[in-house]
């Protein structure tokens, strides 16, 4: 590893040289390569994560460009994960970057994440998020939920059996996967940045910040300290109904 590349962030005491080496040994799986996933992958590759898999089955669409940073008009119609692999490998050749073109399902998710030190949520629907939640709890892999809607984003780092899981906090949520979700263009990169900070904290063994809510229009940042729900069917009762 060329430490000179990371000289300025190694000066940050929360990370340091030891933390930089730790990150360089970690493998991250990012599920989804759109607004959240592509920005989080970009941040992690520049931060110096060891290796990263970006899983997405979609082709780039014109409507993706307002909330992403790495994609150009000339990329429209190409596979998102393949564009990300090519571009991010050019950003940092020391990181092993793999774009994997597939749709995550209950049949393939366990094999997709089995080597992950952490999973990052870059999906656009609750169905897949609950699937990630179950596989993460079952396989004891930390993951970071993130979501965006209009001007509001949410992030929560989840360490199975230590912190609340997604099912602990959300019993009755609207699954609007068929709707076109309104999103302020600069929100996903902001929420991705918060998501990656929580990911770094988990990988470095630091304290998480609970459920984070940020409204980019009102510039209102809130943290909610949540506790595990002992009655949670997923992390409490360990019933994995989606897998």
């Amino acid at each position, binding site marked *: 590893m060329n430490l000179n590349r990371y000289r300025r962030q190694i000066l940050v005491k929360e990370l340091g040289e030891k933390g930089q080496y730790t990150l360089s040994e970690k493998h991250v799986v990012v599920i989804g390569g759109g607004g959240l996933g592509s920005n989080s992958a970009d941040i992690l590759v520049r931060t110096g994560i060891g290796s990263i898999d970006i899983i997405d089955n979609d082709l780039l669409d014109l409507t993706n460009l307002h909330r992403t940073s790495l994609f150009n008009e000339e990329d429209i119609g190409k596979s998102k994960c393949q564009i990300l692999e090519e571009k991010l490998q050019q950003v940092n050749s020391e990181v092993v970057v793999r774009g994997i073109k597939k749709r995550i399902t209950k049949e393939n998710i366990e094999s997709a994440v089995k080597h992950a030190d952490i999973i990052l949520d870059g999906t656009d*629907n609750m169905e897949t998020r609950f699937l990630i939640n179950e596989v993460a709890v079952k396989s004891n892999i930390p993951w970071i939920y993130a*979501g965006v809607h209009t001007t*509001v984003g949410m992030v929560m780092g989840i360490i199975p059996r230590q912190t609340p899981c997604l099912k602990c*906090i*959300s019993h*009755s*949520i609207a699954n609007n996967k068929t709707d076109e979700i309104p999103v302020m263009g600069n929100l996903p990169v902001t929420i991705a940045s918060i998501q990656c900070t929580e990911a770094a904290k988990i990988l470095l063994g630091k304290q998480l910040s609970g459920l984070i*809510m940020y*409204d980019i229009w009102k510039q209102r940042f809130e943290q909610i300290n949540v506790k595990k729900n002992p009655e949670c069917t997923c992390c409490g009762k360990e019933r994995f109904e989606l897998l």
Partner: protein
Amino acid sequence: MKIKIRLFGRYRGITRKKELELVINGDTIWHVVNVLAKQHPAIEKDKKFIMVSKNNIYTTFDEKIEEGDTVTISPPVVSGG
């Protein structure tokens, strides 16, 4: 009975408060949500999807509450990417 309510996200804007107290004729969180939605009709449309906690543990609407409990009302988890 009197229940202490802590509000997050847009519910702070709707009620213009971070915390308030409600008098509830009922013994579940669903009663709390309904009283709040009646006082603030803007909450009505997404009341089924609100995230609720009792004493910092996120839970379901049918959770029993007692005098002195604190109920947290947060916006639904957002799902876009």
